[in-house]
């Protein structure tokens, strides 16, 4: 492209504009020559053309060759025509070409100078760019906050994390609209320092504990958080120890990796840190696992003081709360419905006493014979007094879950009956509005028919 130039605007350099005029003027002159030569020779089809091999030339078709004047010099014969040059054409060609050459050189010069100007101003330009970037980033955070219904978190140095109706910003996006169940979570280094989160597999423990960490990160980066209300005491570090290690490529056992990561956390966490532990101790035997998990929680409670969310399916850890002032049990609710496990995804006080492992296995498609056998074995084990230390039996779902979990209940009924959730809600609403005493037998029958229809 530098061969042709053309990248500098008109009006930038008078000298450049002049060169362009010369080139353009030359071309006009060529057109004038063509007109004049047609008149002089009386050849209407005479044309002045240009090619890169011998520049400007006059082309005359074979039919008119007799009219070609003597001062034309023959250059080339092509099919049906001959090509000629004249001294005059040669001169103009020189003018135009040298003007073009100088024009291109000048454009390059202007461009190079401009590039140098930009380079010289780069400190100011980069500072300006940084401000544009900041505006863009803040507008982006505002856009997401608006679109996804985030709230402005209260920020302080108090150390408390208190979230009302918190969601997981990524998971909620993947879920159907309104399907994500929000939860309240409070962590307070002087009271609810450690939450032991129990609940069956697949109940949403991992999602819940991660969303707390994400809220802290989003808030401290300067953004709003996925909650109805949020108060966030500044954290100095966020640690997680989640799931089974995937560092097998490095030739270390899962358990070794898990313990190394846990060791790092215990070593570097402070009272201002947030720790997310998901099923630690899983990579070894149950006794070892429970013992290690217990000791880790105790250490965090007694020595570290960090706010901690500890998801576990070891029921035994529920007993920690009784012995340690700042440990609380919470559980992600699930309940049984006609032999199936139903996840309410609602966080409630108290620990879950059932893991629903067999039900989850059934859900995952384990053959019925295996599921039945597992259930029988479980019953035997449980009646024998359980494997590890006795746990205080609690109701599957504490009482307050009934109100919180209403939407969940609808989905429970809906799922069990195989009808859409709104239909169930609709039916309940209709039934609530009815006064049976006011209803004639005929009207009652009609209503029943209508409601039954809604559910099919």
């Amino acid at each position, binding site marked *: *492209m*530098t061969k042709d130039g053309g*990248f*500098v*605007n008109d009006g*930038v350099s008078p000298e450049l504009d002049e060169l362009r005029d010369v080139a353009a003027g030359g071309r006009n002159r060529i057109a004038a020559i063509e007109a004049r030569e047609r008149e002089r020779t009386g050849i209407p089809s005479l044309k002045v053309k240009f090619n890169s091999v011998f520049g400007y030339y006059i082309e005359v078709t074979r039919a008119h060759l007799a009219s070609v004047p003597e001062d034309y010099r023959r250059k080339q014969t092509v099919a049906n025509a001959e090509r000629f040059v004249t001294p005059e054409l040669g001169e103009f060609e020189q003018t135009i070409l040298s003007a073009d050459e100088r024009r291109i050189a000048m454009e390059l010069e*202007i*461009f*190079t100078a401009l*590039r140098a100007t*930009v*380079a010289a*101003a*780069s400190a100011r*330009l*980069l500072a*300006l*760019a*940084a401000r*544009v*970037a*900041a*505006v*863009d*980033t*803040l*507008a*982006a*955070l*505002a*856009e997401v906050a*608006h679109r996804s219904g985030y709230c*402005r*978190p209260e*920020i*302080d*140095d108090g150390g408390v994390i208190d979230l009302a109706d918190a969601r997981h*910003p*990524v998971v909620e*996006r993947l879920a159907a609209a309104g399907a994500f169940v929000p939860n309240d979570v409070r962590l307070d280094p002087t009271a609810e320092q450690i939450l032991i989160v129990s609940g069956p597999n697949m109940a949403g423990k991992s999602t819940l504990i*991660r969303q707390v*960490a994400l809220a*802290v*990160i*989003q*808030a*401290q*980066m*300067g*953004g*709003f958080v996925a909650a109805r209300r949020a108060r966030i005491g*500044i954290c*100095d570090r*966020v640690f*997680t120890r*989640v799931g089974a290690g995937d560092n097998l490529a*490095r030739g270390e056992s899962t358990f070794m990796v898990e313990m190394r*990561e846990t060791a790092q956390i215990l070593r*570097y966490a402070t009272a201002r840190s947030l720790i997310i532990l*998901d099923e630690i101790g899983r990579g070894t035997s149950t006794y070892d696992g429970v013992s290690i998990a217990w000791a880790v929680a105790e250490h965090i409670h007694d020595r570290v003081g960090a706010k901690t969310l500890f998801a576990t399916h070891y029921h035994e850890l529920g007993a920690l709360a009784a012995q340690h002032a700042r440990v609380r049990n919470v559980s992600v609710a699930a309940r049984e419905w006609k032999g199936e496990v139903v996840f309410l995804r609602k966080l409630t006080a108290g620990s879950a006493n059932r893991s629903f492992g067999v039900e989850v296995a059934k859900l995952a498609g384990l053959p019925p014979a295996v599921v039945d056998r597992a259930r029988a074995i479980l019953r035997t084990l449980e009646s024998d007094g359980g494997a590890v230390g006795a746990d205080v039996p609690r109701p599957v779902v504490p009482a307050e879950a009934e109100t919180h979990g209403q939407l969940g209940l609808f989905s429970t009924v809906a799922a069990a009956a195989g009808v859409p959730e709104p239909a169930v809600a609709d039916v309940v609403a209709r039934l609530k509005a009815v006064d049976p005493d006011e209803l004639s037998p005929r009207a009652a029958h009609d209503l029943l028919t209508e409601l039954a229809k809604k559910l099919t």
Partner: protein
Amino acid sequence: MAAEAPVPAPAPAATTALMRQYLDVKARYPDAIVFFRLGDFYEMFHEDAVYAARVLDLTLTTRDKGKEDPVPMCGIPHHAVRPYLVKLTELGHRVALCEQLEDPRAVRGIVKRDVVRVVTPGVVLDEESLDPRAPSYVAAVVGDARGGYGLAFLDVSTGDFRATEAATGDALCEEIGRVAPRELVFGRDDDGQALVELVRPAHPSVPRTAVASGDDAAELTRAFGAAVARDLGTRTPRAAAAAGAVLRYAAATQPGVELPVTRVDVYGRTDTLIIDEQARRHLELTESLLDRRRASSLIEVLDESRTAMGGRLLRRWLLFPSVDVAAIRRRHDAVERLVASHAARDAARRVLAEVADIERLVGRARLGVATPRDLAVLGRSLARLPELRAALADADAGELGGSLAKDESLLSLGDDLAPRSPPSWDASCAPTRPR
């Protein structure tokens, strides 16, 4: 450097003036694969040729057939060089681009040639090889267990340059993980070797380059002036040493031009919310745990930025959140006003969508590789900024926009270049860089 790197062979005897020229260049860039421009081709010779022919699947020939002990050679058409550069840097290599500095038609005898640029895994200027929404850092590490460590990282394409210190090896490795450099530079001495041993287990796949020692302090002085350099060296000696090292390394890759470096930010790790590597991965902040893709990560949800610059800054805020209550509240104030004012937010975002990557364009201008089109795009983007300021003034977000476009002279910089500039630029025709 990857283990496969060609080993510099004992210098073969040159038989022609051209080969003397080549060997002179190669001697100055012994650790790089030299792409030696001969007319329309980049040629490689000797060990470079043997190695490149194998990994790039090129035909290996010889320069002087029939002679005893012929010189192995292979070549790439200059217009097709990009994929080969990408491949070699991905393998962890450095490539020295040696160009013809004179027009062969205008010179008698041998044309002057020299290295105009070294492309390395971390120092990449090619737009198509750069992720617009992530920085491309080359990082240097210095220090030892007793005195602590320094880490400095530089994005040569934008001048984004930061440094920090770490008391322990764990902290150093953790910070390297957060920075995610594309290339790590170590000293070639015993300390450097110890650092390699320290860092390699945590970051086995990051290309490593060993550099000979040099006057790093002088490099800092040259870039920022004696006062700033002295101050840095006094307050944060390890960070300053690392900054000098990475600056010296990066400067050597761009002979004859100034890097677009205008400042170095030294931050304390404890001034940021430290997110350890497990947390970064398990919380899926920038990539998903399973397939390591951006989809279904937090940044995918949050990144509604309209410019590449905003995308990079958002990523930085996400990976380096603040612990300063006042600073965080200031950001929340701004976000709150932009949430409240739909009109201002929409208008601002509409303008921003028309703003190009000013940082990388300025970087390219500074490094002498900007094309007319680059400057025209830069000019158009700068010309939009008054509109951005006006959009923000409509909201209660005036002070956000106030800092923009104060410097009116900057806004007309690109006016002189025609917007109709063709999109391509034949590098072979590029004017010689300012020296």
